[in-house]
């Protein structure tokens, strides 16, 4: 059912005539618990395509957050639809299932979200461009922020799965203080009373947590209800526009790190936030900005080279000659972003919870794996 609807939706989204100059296959998560992220990436991407009036045919399909479904969709898009570029994947495990095979078939892959370390280091590839971040980046920035904020005894927690251990590793890479405790929770856990009791008893001066999606909502609400008032730090994922309405006041004042914020002061971003609200009637999220930037990167490269000439097109992508919503944006040698990562604070703007930038955590940050990339 969902696949049918997504296919129909894809069919109505054809921009331009049947024989478009560029065919893009977007595999993203449009159903299940992670659907909010995929919808925002899709909406941001399609908004940029529409604004540029670019001759791009976008085929949107739902991966249902399942690697096997995504692999099947990628095969279909490459072999029967003949797409030139793939994009859209939200989750790292799905990216790892799809991206290497797509690259082996000489397609370009532009990542609007997931940035697994395996694709940033030794497994980097000339046709893979990450337009979001390497997975560790926002956590590293949180660690750097903890130092400047003067925290010296942090309690850290994350789910017990690869992205969770990476998050804690990323935090510890920059954080210089001591650890009041280190806890791995279960993936999908919804009750954090036990962890919160440990935090209360630990004597920590700060808490760093990475709990994406509903886990973060549950943790934040329960933390606020518990009356523990040790300051929280987290990556922007748990404080973005997709989940802030569900967390409510519990998130107010929390400092979080991200490469983008709705109030980031540059022309491209002001226009993006305004037009996204006009088009969809809601504030854009981090993920929407990443989708928007991904499409604009692609459009900038199309203006310089034909996708059939892979070397020229790759060089055009590498230039990153587009007006990013993040302001300065460049690719490092491993085709991952080199960008500023900000500290944001959750504020109440006329009844809507959103983020405001309060400082820069890391300037021109690349990633820890670039040195291992040989291409």
């Amino acid at each position: 059912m969902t696949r049918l609807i997504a296919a129909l939706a894809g069919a109505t989204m054809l921009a331009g005539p049947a024989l478009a100059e560029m065919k893009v296959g977007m595999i993203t998560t449009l159903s299940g618990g992670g659907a909010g992220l995929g919808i925002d990436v899709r909406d941001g991407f399609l908004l940029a395509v529409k604004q540029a009036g670019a001759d791009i045919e976008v085929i949107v399909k739902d991966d249902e957050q399942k690697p096997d479904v995504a692999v099947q969709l990628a095969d279909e898009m490459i072999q029967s639809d003949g797409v030139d570029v793939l994009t859209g994947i939200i989750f790292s495990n799905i990216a790892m299932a799809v991206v290497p095979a797509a690259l082996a078939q000489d397609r370009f892959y532009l990542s609007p979200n997931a940035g697994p370390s395996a694709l940033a280091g030794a497994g980097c590839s000339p046709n893979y461009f990450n337009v979001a971040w390497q997975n560790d980046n926002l956590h590293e920035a949180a660690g750097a922020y903890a130092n400047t904020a003067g925290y010296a005894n942090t309690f850290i927690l994350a789910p017990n799965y690869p992205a969770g251990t990476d998050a804690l590793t990323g935090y510890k890479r920059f954080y210089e203080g001591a650890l009041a405790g280190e806890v791995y929770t279960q993936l999908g856990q919804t009750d954090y009373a036990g962890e919160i009791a440990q935090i209360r008893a630990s004597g920590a001066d700060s808490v760093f947590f990475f709990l994406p999606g509903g886990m973060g909502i549950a943790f934040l609400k329960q933390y606020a209800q518990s009356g523990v008032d040790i300051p929280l730090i987290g990556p922007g994922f748990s404080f973005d526009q997709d989940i802030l309405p569900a967390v409510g006041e519990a998130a107010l004042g929390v400092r979080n790190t991200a490469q983008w914020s709705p109030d980031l002061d540059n022309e491209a971003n002001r226009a993006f936030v305004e037009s996204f609200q006009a088009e969809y009637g809601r504030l854009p999220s981090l993920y929407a900005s990443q989708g928007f930037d991904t499409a604009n990167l692609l459009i900038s490269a199309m203006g310089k080279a034909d996708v059939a000439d892979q070397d020229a097109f790759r060089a055009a992508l590498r230039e990153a000659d587009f007006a990013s919503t993040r302001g300065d944006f460049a690719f490092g040698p491993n085709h991952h972003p080199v960008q500023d990562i900000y500290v944001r604070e959750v504020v109440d703007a006329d009844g809507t919870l959103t983020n405001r930038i309060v400082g820069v955590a890391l300037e021109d940050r690349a990633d820890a794996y670039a040195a291992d990339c040989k291409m």
Partner: protein
Amino acid sequence: MAWTLLLEQVLNGLQYGMTLFVMASGLTLVFGVMGLINLAHGSLYMVGAFACAAVAAATGSFALGLVAALAAAAAAGALVELLVIRRLYARDHLDQVLATFALILIFSEGTRWVFGSFPLYLSIPAALSGSVPLPGGSAYPVYRLVVIAVGLAVAAFLFWLIGRTRLGVQIRAGEADREMIAALGVDISRLYTAIFALGAALAGLAGALVGALQSVQVGMGEPVLILAFVVIVIGGIGSIRGALVGALLVGLTDTLGRFLLPQAFRAVLEPSAATGVGSALASMLIYVLMAGVLIWRPKGLYGAAG
């Protein structure tokens, strides 16, 4: 480790167990009396949470939200029983699993159509948002104590209903021999609709109670469904007492395991390795518990013999 922290963790385990009990009691009623494996029980939990969130947002009253959650889940349950489940009693369990799995997909995508893909806001009522001091200087949220109380009230209500009322007699009789009680003039199909709606209402209540602590989002019911099945298998299928004991066992084992195991391993391993090993083992603990109970008592703790 301070004993106050341990006391707090025991309370957390009790509270977690009570929410599991409210969820599992409905499942065990339906499974035990009607012989039906209802995978869509988690969807009814979700329906309750969404109804509560929507009504609480519209009226500002959590109490009205709770009423709406019970009503919406019971209505959805009755409707599903009349339209779909009724055709499945005579079929084998595999057909039931398939059909109720389809219901999960329908409920999930239907909820997405109505409410969108983004999680909804539902918070605990202001009157219950404080905390009470515990001996030893710690504090415990009032709302979680209320959840424990609600769980106890549901247990008392179900024991009364099954043990002391006419409906309870019919339910017990239906469990033992459904043809015979139909022959005695009990309208078995109406009885089944009522039981199914009751089970659904309990799931909706659990969803609304837990929705205020967690996130109200599509797909929230499935992880709890798995735990509810673990609970009723441990407790013995069809037994309310079994569901209560099983839920408390699972709640306490899970909460205390997550807390104590990493600490225990810290005595022999360095801290980050101890955390990793301890957490990995803690997440298996309830399944180990289930396996242990099943070896000792293949029908569960309070399962019908034979």
